[in-house]
């Protein structure tokens, strides 16, 4: 297998609310292969989200390197990184972060505006069907249930056929049934050749992962 996400000696510190310097990540190295579903488990405040944002090129590390599909994110400008992200990385958040003024269909199609192919609508239709949202396609995101929202967010993350999916506590706000559907969706994505990095504090969310890493004290083990 090929390393789709390669993180080497990653370090990141930030100032806490009390003004103290906190070392969120201290020399983390990990890799996620294509077709692999990796879960990083850790308590709240352990730096999981920071790790995910750095992995997606949204946050620059203090030290270390991140590459996706062999491309070094550190060598890219912010604009270049955005373009790269549009075609290669999908994000799923705990709070879903759908655009409230768009319908399910248009939310799923949003990545196509950032830079997608001409078959975006067709692809969006397939994803909507895959996640059981056919009857909700024209509904505004604001009127969806939490489970539907997360499934919509997952479909959105997959629209541009990214190589890597980064999921931040995607089941944190879901009931058991919906959590299973979302985790199945992530697992299926990995089975189709994509790479998934999920961060969570919930043990049950790691059940479908191929590998589970523990993030504690700024290091993974």
């Amino acid at each position, binding site marked *: 297998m090929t390393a789709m996400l390669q993180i080497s000696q990653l370090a990141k510190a930030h100032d806490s609310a009390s003004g103290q310097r906190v070392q969120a990540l201290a020399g983390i190295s990990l890799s996620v292969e294509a077709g692999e579903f990796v879960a990083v488990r850790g308590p709240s405040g352990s730096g999981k*989200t*920071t790790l995910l*944002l750095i992995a*997606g090129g*949204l*946050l620059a590390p203090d030290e270390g390197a991140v590459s996706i599909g062999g491309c070094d994110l550190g060598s890219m400008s*912010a*604009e270049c990184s*955005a*373009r*790269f*992200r*549009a*075609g290669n*990385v999908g*994000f799923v*958040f705990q*709070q879903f*972060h759908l*655009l*409230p*003024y*768009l319908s399910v269909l*248009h939310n799923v*199609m*949003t*990545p*196509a*505006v*950032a*830079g*997608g192919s*001409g*078959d*975006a*609508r*067709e692809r969006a239709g397939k994803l909507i069907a895959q996640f059981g949202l056919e009857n909700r396609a024209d509904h505004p995101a604001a009127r969806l249930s939490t489970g539907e929202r997360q499934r919509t967010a997952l479909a*959105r993350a997959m629209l*541009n056929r990214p190589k890597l999916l980064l999921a931040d506590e995607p089941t944190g706000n879901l009931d058991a049934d919906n959590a299973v559907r979302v985790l199945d969706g992530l697992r299926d994505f990995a089975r189709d050749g994509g790479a998934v990095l999920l961060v969570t504090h919930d043990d049950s969310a790691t059940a479908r992962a191929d590998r589970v890493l523990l993030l504690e004290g700024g290091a993974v083990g």
Partner: protein
Amino acid sequence: MVSRSDVMKIWGMIWREIAFRKLNFGLALLSVATAVGCLVGTLTLLKADARRTERLLAAKEVEVAKAGAGLEDAVRRITKGLGFNIIILPKGQDLNEMHLEGSLSKQMPEEYVHRLAKSKIVTINHLLPTVMKKLTWPETGLSVILYGTRGEIPIRHRDPKKPLLETVPEGTMIIGHQVGQKLGLQVGADIVLLGQKFSIGKVHGERGTIDDSTVWISLSKAQELLGMQNLIHAIQALECHCAGDRLFQIRAEIAGILPGTQVIERGPPALARAEARSQAKQSADDALAREVGNRNQLRDQREAFAAVLAPLIWIGASVWIGFLMLGNVRERRVEIGVLRAIGFRSSQILQLFLGKALLFGLVGSLLGFAVGGCAGSLLGESPVALSGPDALVRFSLALGLALALSVFASWIPALLAVRQDPALVLQEE
């Protein structure tokens, strides 16, 4: 295959966001419409006012011209009795003889008057060839001034003017008050002068001048009686309303046509006539100039007020739109973070906000133009067209300024949106 038109674009997102946050868009649109409406309304009002002023001034001009003409005519009629004030005399005529004896002895061809009439002379009017001789009336023993006149010779290049002196018909005599009194003559009576019989056509009332001792007969008869066929003693005329040294101009012009002749001007009463007419015309012109001045002053005051008010409104609208857009950016900070995570570039985030600004700028300018134009027309009590070249200029101005205002006011909020750190927002969430 799905066509490109099926793929949602930035404009689609802008449109849907507007539909979702109608109040924000509506308030921004209202600000632009207010600013444009005030500008267009003010311009329309000023235009309508200018048109109304033009109409009023045109009417006033006609009214003043009419009143001035009436006044001038009244003065002309009042001063008409003062008679001719320019006398053209033959070369060598002793002026003492005319002043002391009321008689002239030197002669010049009658053809001179026709030469003047055919010329392009502009400084004088009302040419009157005359013979004028003091004599003792043999048949009555009375000393009189015999005055022969044939009526005025029209100047060819001018419109005919109403004669100052009527022609004395052939075989008729007009006599002054003193002559009539002394000889006991009435209109219709017959009398003989130098062997020629005349019928009295008119007896003038008392004038207190040499006219009281004058008898008027036709020029041809006077020439015959005095043995002066085709000769005259003088040409009388009335000067035009010339500015500057009138007599100098008149003398120069007549010298060019009738070399050697003398030109004299009669005394103050005759001059006063021309002065009075000039004064009457001047008064009318001054009244109109005062009206124009007042109107212009009023217009300047309105323009000065508009020049202060319009920018204030635009600055206010700009600040208000800036705050609205800032609020919009703050409300959408998570959305911006998510879009950045999805892969939206800075230029696309900028488009989301500036595109919205262009939309409310465009719609606001249309609304403001229509409302401002109608309000301006109504308040100005003068319909100003909302189409045509003038309106196109006003619309282009309004549209350009509205778009500039919208983009300018939204620029800083849009830049803040672009510079927002997505990681910070997503970590907070």
